[in-house]
Every structure is written in structure tokens, then in C-alpha cells.
């Protein structure tokens, strides 16, 4: 088991290295001048070419790209995530402060997607082609088709106009004020979770339809086992494996989807920080956050693979 984990982590290294290469060089070929955030639109226009050269040198922008890349990797390996270009805020502190909110939103979204998607998928499969099945399928298609940020905007406007409610301002950690924290993450978590639940429901329905036609399910029924027990003990465990797999993938999508949904809810998570950094062409922040998302994606998928062992004892990793 440990060897497997180690091997997976080693396999992840080239993936993460690829992410660093891709994001670093793609950002360098994108148009836009990072000096604008340092000097403003008016200020940057008044810079002479000589001024620009001096400033670029001071910031290290004039070094060959491979040197800049190597320097960034070295900083990462030594745990130095650097500082934002203009204000000099610590990137590590930004991640710690905002990452909690984004992490909570993603976890809440996965929970919601399971709580909604899995029962909907199972009921849909168990009552195939019934009115309930059609309603469930219609809802899943709606959730798949409608973008999360649009639903988010409707929720924000609806709660504001109907209840004069708006989530608390700022970043509030769960250990500081759990209720206020929950109010901040609940909206985006539920909206993202409902969107994701559509994928879960559709996958759960199709896998469940396969599983309940298996011999061992038929045998269980023939033995007189109650239908509830058949579903929970025999069918569900086997049907849930693909759902687990897709959940890992969806978790990654949730991180990226949270960028727009956080904006709509005005939640100061990592997604909002990423958008702002990109607009300001704060390249270090963008590449560090993208790499962080990559790391989370890799780790979550590894954890999902390990969870197979718990769900299905027949699976062993060596």
C-alpha cells in the first residue's frame, strides 16, 4: 500500500512539473504589461524606455525565461511562495487565508452533489421510466445546462430582494465564527453542489441500472433479502465506485468553477484572488495558484483511489 502511494506520488511529479512549465510559459506569451499595476495607466505611459529597462531589471523580468523559471522552482522547493508584485503581500498568507474558504466551498459542493445526486440517481434507476425518473432526468439536464455563475447571480439577487439578506463581508475562518463562516460558504457550495449533482445523478443512474441486473443482486432478491438491504448492501457499494472516480475529477472542476461562482457571491476565496491576479498580470500569484490547484487535483485523485479499498475490499494495491 505504502509503495503504491509512493509510486503514485512519484508519478505525480512529472504531472506537476508539466503544469509549472505550461503555466509559466503560457503566462509569458500572453499580452499585457505587469508594470501597469505598479505604476497605473497614466504612470506607465510616462515611463521612458530607459525607466522601463531599469524597473524590469529590478524585478528580474529581463532575465532569460529559463532562469526565471528555475528561480521560481527553487523558491517553491524551499517553501518560498514569494510576494505579490505591487503590495508585497505574502502569497503563502493569501493562500492560507483564502484557501480555507475555497476548500470549504469545494468540500461542501461535493457533499451536496452526493446528497442530492446519489439518491436521485438511485431512485431514477429503481423507478426507471417512471414519472419520478423523468423529473429527475429533466432536473439533471437543467443543472447541467445552466452555468453555475448564472444560478449564483439569481440566488444573490433573489435572497437580497426577497429577504434583504447578504452573506457576511470579508474572510471569516470557521474557527473564528463558525456560523458566519457557514453563511459565506453555503451559497457557493450549494450552487456548485447542485450543478455537480447532475453529473453524479446521471452516472449513478446508469451504473445502478447495470448493477441491479447483476447475478448477485438477483441472488440476493431470490434469497428474500429486503429491497432496501439489496440496494444498500449489494448494489450501492458496487455502483458507487465509478461515482467515486468521477467525484475526484469533479472536485478539480469545482475548484475551477469556484472562480466564477466566488465572484458572483463576492466571496474572497482563491478563485477571486486568481482572477484579480490575472487581471493585474501578477504572474507569480497566478502561476502559484494554478500549481496549487494542480497539486490539489492530484492529491484528491490519489485519495479517491485509496478510498476504493475501503469501499470495495476486493481491491488491493501493491
Amino acid at each position, binding site marked *: 500500500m505504502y509503495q503504491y502511494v509512493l509510486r503514485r506520488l512519484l508519478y505525480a511529479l512529472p504531472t506537476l512539473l508539466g503544469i509549472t512549465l505550461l503555466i509559466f510559459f503560457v503566462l509569458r506569451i500572453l*499580452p*499585457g*504589461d*505587469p508594470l*501597469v*499595476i*505598479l*505604476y*497605473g*495607466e*497614466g*504612470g*506607465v*505611459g*510616462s*515611463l521612458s524606455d530607459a*525607466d522601463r529597462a*531599469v*524597473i524590469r531589471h*529590478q524585478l528580474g523580468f529581463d532575465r532569460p525565461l529559463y532562469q526565471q523559471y528555475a528561480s521560481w522552482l527553487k523558491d517553491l522547493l524551499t517553501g518560498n511562495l514569494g510576494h*505579490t508584485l*505591487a*503590495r*508585497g*503581500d505574502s502569497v503563502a*498568507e*493569501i493562500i492560507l*487565508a483564502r484557501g480555507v474558504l475555497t476548500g470549504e466551498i469545494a468540500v461542501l459542493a461535493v457533499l451536496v452533489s452526493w446528497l442530492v445526486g446519489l439518491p436521485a440517481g438511485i431512485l431514477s434507476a429503481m423507478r426507471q421510466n417512471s414519472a419520478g425518473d423523468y423529473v429527475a432526468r429533466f432536473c439533471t439536464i437543467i443543472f447541467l445546462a445552466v452555468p453555475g455563475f448564472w444560478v449564483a447571480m439569481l440566488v*444573490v439577487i433573489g435572497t*437580497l430582494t426577497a429577504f*434583504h*439578506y*447578504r452573506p*457576511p*463581508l*470579508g*474572510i471569516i475562518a470557521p474557527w473564528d465564527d463558525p456560523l458566519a463562516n457557514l453563511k459565506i460558504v453555503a451559497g457557493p457550495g450549494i450552487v456548485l453542489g447542485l450543478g455537480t449533482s447532475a453529473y453524479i445523478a446521471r452516472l449513478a443512474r446508469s451504473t445502478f441500472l447495470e448493477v441491479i441486473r447483476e447475478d448477485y443482486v438477483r441472488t440476493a432478491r431470490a434469497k428474500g433479502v429486503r429491497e432496501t438491504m439489496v440496494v444498500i448492501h449489494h448494489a450501492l457499494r458496487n455502483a458507487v465506485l465509478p461515482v467515486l472516480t468521477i467525484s475526484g475529477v469533479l472536485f478539480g472542476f469545482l475548484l475551477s468553477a469556484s472562480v466564477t461562482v466566488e465572484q458572483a457571491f*463576492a466571496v*474572497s476565496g482563491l478563485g*477571486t*484572488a486568481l482572477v*484579480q491576479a*490575472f*487581471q*493585474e*498580470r501578477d504572474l507569480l500569484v497566478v502561476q502559484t495558484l494554478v500549481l496549487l490547484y494542480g497539486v490539489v487535483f492530484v492529491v484528491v485523485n490519489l485519495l479517491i483511489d485509496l478510498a476504493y479499498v475501503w469501499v470495495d475490499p476486493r481491491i488491493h494495491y501493491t
Partner: protein
Amino acid sequence: MAYSRGMRVRSTLWIQVSLLALVAIACGTATAATNPGQALSSTPTAMLRAPESNPKYGGILRWAGLADAPFFDLHQCDTAACATPLEPMYDTLLRYNPLDGGKTVIPDLASTWEVSSNGLTYTFHLRDGVTFHDGASLTAEDVKASFDHIIFPPPGILSPRKSVFDAVKEVKVVDPLTVQFVLSAPRGFFLEAIASGWNVIYRKKTLEDNHFDLKRLKIAPGTGPFIFDSYQPGQVWKMHKNPHYWNPELPYLDGLEMHHLPYGPATAAALLTGQVDYAYGLGADTRADVQQQPDKFTTVTYGIPSAIGGYINFTHQPLGDARVRQAMHLVLDRCVIKKTAATIREIHYGMWMPSSDVVHAQAYREATWNHVPGYYCPTRPEDIAQAKDLLSQAGYPNGKGFPKLDIMVRNINFLVAWGPLLQAFLKQHLNIDSSVRTVETAVWSDDQTKGNYDIGINGSPATVNTPAEYWGKWYGTGSSGNWNRGASNPQFDALVDQLKMETDPQKLNDLIQQGIKLLDGWVPALVFGDAVIIDGFTNRLKGCDRKDRVTLFDDNRFDTCWLDK
């Protein structure tokens, strides 16, 4: 109200000049402004306090708006996101009066001042006993160091507003509490420029210890009414009352919480739900929601000196041809432009002088709107015919052979709508094809600097509400705010130089008329409008009624504000 920031100057220097002029006229001599022959001085005034008779102390004012300062050096910054959260911690030499919306200049760290008879020397006397938040005493050396930082920035330090002080030869320390500005030429708006909220006084030691670059210093000690507590990037600033503030009456509030929220519905939502007491930049679409509860909230609307529109790349032919630019200017339907942005952002009709400059611009704007070709609403057929004729004279009859234009739009909500709109005007009336690309600010600025655009849509603010300053900034040769690449008109530059020096109101007006004629013929830019800000606040907030406010960057100290419990 027929006021503007320009009146600040009148309230100080020009009112005194006028009085002297009356005396001079009575004596049968030339006006004081043209031949002053006498020094001018301020008279000591009472300390600033809330206008109400019973202001209450205590409470935290929760404010929401643009507060995500890109950095912490007010001298180098040029966005409201710096001005609002940072200014409460600092003082200036003079300041705009927060009680009249910023229409007059009043003493601040300088309690009195004198202007020499030739208008070339300004002497400011500092208050005694003023201390910085770190306990150090304020001296003239700090004032000199601060203004040297602004006017003569060292290499690598930018000063976006140093051109306002282009006539300053030297800032001299006369004694520990007296500082003198020596000018090479008179400037009619000098006191107004000094009072700008950007020109806060830092400690000389702070500047020197940080190699004159305070961008990353959190937070340079000031002398202001509020002291820095904490800052969460992109979130909130917290400050508490300065118990040793030199004005014993102020501030009334125990502290400030300034939350960063994007312009528009987000700030309105925070106000409506009671999360904040003051919302900056409500957005035109959400103003009505706030106004529906007059028993709870007040809204105020104010213009700022700004030019929003299409900045032209003169180096890309045929845009260097004035006839082409005139033709484009004539086919703009400014009513449609205003309506297009109306749900997002309110603007005033675009003319050469912004509506915020009421002293100089009001008569011009009234005489121009619906009276001058290019400013009719809707656009008149004869103006369109004239535009076509001009284009034909330039060698492009019915737009034939005119190169396809690249319209670059800065990615800000209300600007984005104007790209396709300009595209439609040009195609519909002049048969000019164009493509529109919406880009991030960093790209807009980069491409503008490199000249990779034909018409760039954006907005630029000015520091002082007088044509000498804003015309120089927006259309002056080589100015950092002149985004019309290659636009240079020596005649216009000479006129702006004259405007800067002129103090006689009549001559100033004559020069302005000449300037408008020059601009009408030259058309350095396609002006769509000037910006309007809509704020809302709880009726519990007193002492800082910003009705008829004419400034955005200059009166953000909140020291006269108080909360009625």
C-alpha cells in the same frame, strides 16, 4: 448648484485677488491680477468641526467600495482604491473643505499662508505640536521631503501628478515650522493643487529609510485623524481614532472599517442589508433600490473631472487627418452613449470641459449642448452630411478605401458597451469598418503605449478641476494622460501654458474660448462623457453630507462624520 472645485481657488487666492482688484479699480489702477503689486495672505480660521451643533462621539463607520489599494504610497498611486482607504490616516498642507463638498480650500497642517505680490512665492506656516502616529513631531523638513517626493521624484519613483507643480523651482525650509514654495511662473490653481488629497505629508525619515518608495510599506505613519490597525489584502482596512489629533474636536468616530467591494450592486447590497453604513459607487441600476427607502438611506451623486471616450492613435493614418477625426466627432450620438451605459454607470454628456468644472465649464456646456454640431441629440442629418463631406475631402468618399479600424476597449462593464456602439456609429454614418476587442487593463495600457490600436476606449481622471490642468493632462504634448498617441498641437500647448499662468478671470475665459475652438478643429479625442459617482449612506451618518460634492480623491478623511445612535 453652480459650484465647482475651481471655486476653491476663488475662495482663497482669487477672492482675495478680486478684492484687491476692486480696491485697485477704485484707485484707478490696473487689476490686481495683472499688476497685483501686493502680497496676499490667508486669515486664521476656526478649527474644522461638524456642522451640527450636537455631534456625538463614538461608533465605527463601516464603509464599502473600492479599497483594494494596489500599493500604499499615495504620492505614486492614481486610483480611488488608494485614496479612500489611505487618506483618513494622513493630513495635507491645505485641504478641500469637506463641509461644502470640497468647493473651498481651508487650512490643514498649515494654519496660515502668504502669497508674494508676484505670485511666485508661497509661504506656509505649520501648526505647532502636530505629531505623527509614531510620536515624531511634524516639521517643515517633512513637508519639504513630501513635496520633493512629489515634484522632484528620484529615479525609479513615479509621480503621476508632478506636472501640476511644473512651475515649482524649489521647496525651501524657512524655519522648523515654515515652508516656502518658489515658482518660476505664477499658477492660478496652486493652492488648489497643494490641497489635493493625494499630497499627504509623510515623515522625511520614513521616506529616506525606504529609499523614497513607500509602495510596499504598511503603513507609513501619518498625522491624520485615524491610525492604522490592520489590513486584509483585498478585504478590509481597520483604523482607530487618533487620540492625539491636532484638532481636539475631531474625529468623532472611534474608528473606520473600510471594506473592499467592487463598484455597483455589491456595495448597494451591503448597504441595503445593513452590513455597512456608507456605500461608495452604488451603480445607476441599484440607486433606485436605495432611494426607495428614504427614511433609512440618503444617496448623493457627484461628478469627477474625467474624460471617458475614444483615444485616437494619430500615428495610424488616416486618423492623423483632422477632417477624419472631425467626421467621427460629428456622428457620435451622445444621448445614445449616455443611455447605453445608464443602467451600469451614470455619465454626463461628453464635451471638452467636464461638468464637474462648473465655474469654467457650465456656460460652455449650456451653450454647446443641442446648439453646436456634434452635440445635438439625436444627431442631426445635416451634421451627418457634414461628416460625410469631411471624410470625402479627406479622400474617403462614403468610407471607400478607409482602412479597417481596431477599436480597443478596456474591460470595464460600462466601457464594454461602447465598443460596439462606436463601431455602429462609424459603419452606419461613415461606412467605416472596424473590429472591437475588449482587453484587460494591463493589455490596454501595454498596447496603447506601443501604439497597437486605432481607437482606445478608456477613461482618465484629472487632479485639479481647471482646464489648465485637465486639458494639459488629456491633450498636452507628451503628457502621461494624453493617450491619443502622437497627438501634438503646439498652438494648444502654448494656450495651456498661458492658461496655467493666467489669474484674471476675464482673460482666463477668453483663453478657454480659444481652447474650445482649437479643440473643435483639432479633435484630439472622441469624448463620450465624464464620470459620475453615486454614493449611498445611512441616515444615521451625520457631519459629512456629501451633497453637491465635486471631488472624489480629495476629501476622504471622514473626520467630521459622526453616527447618530
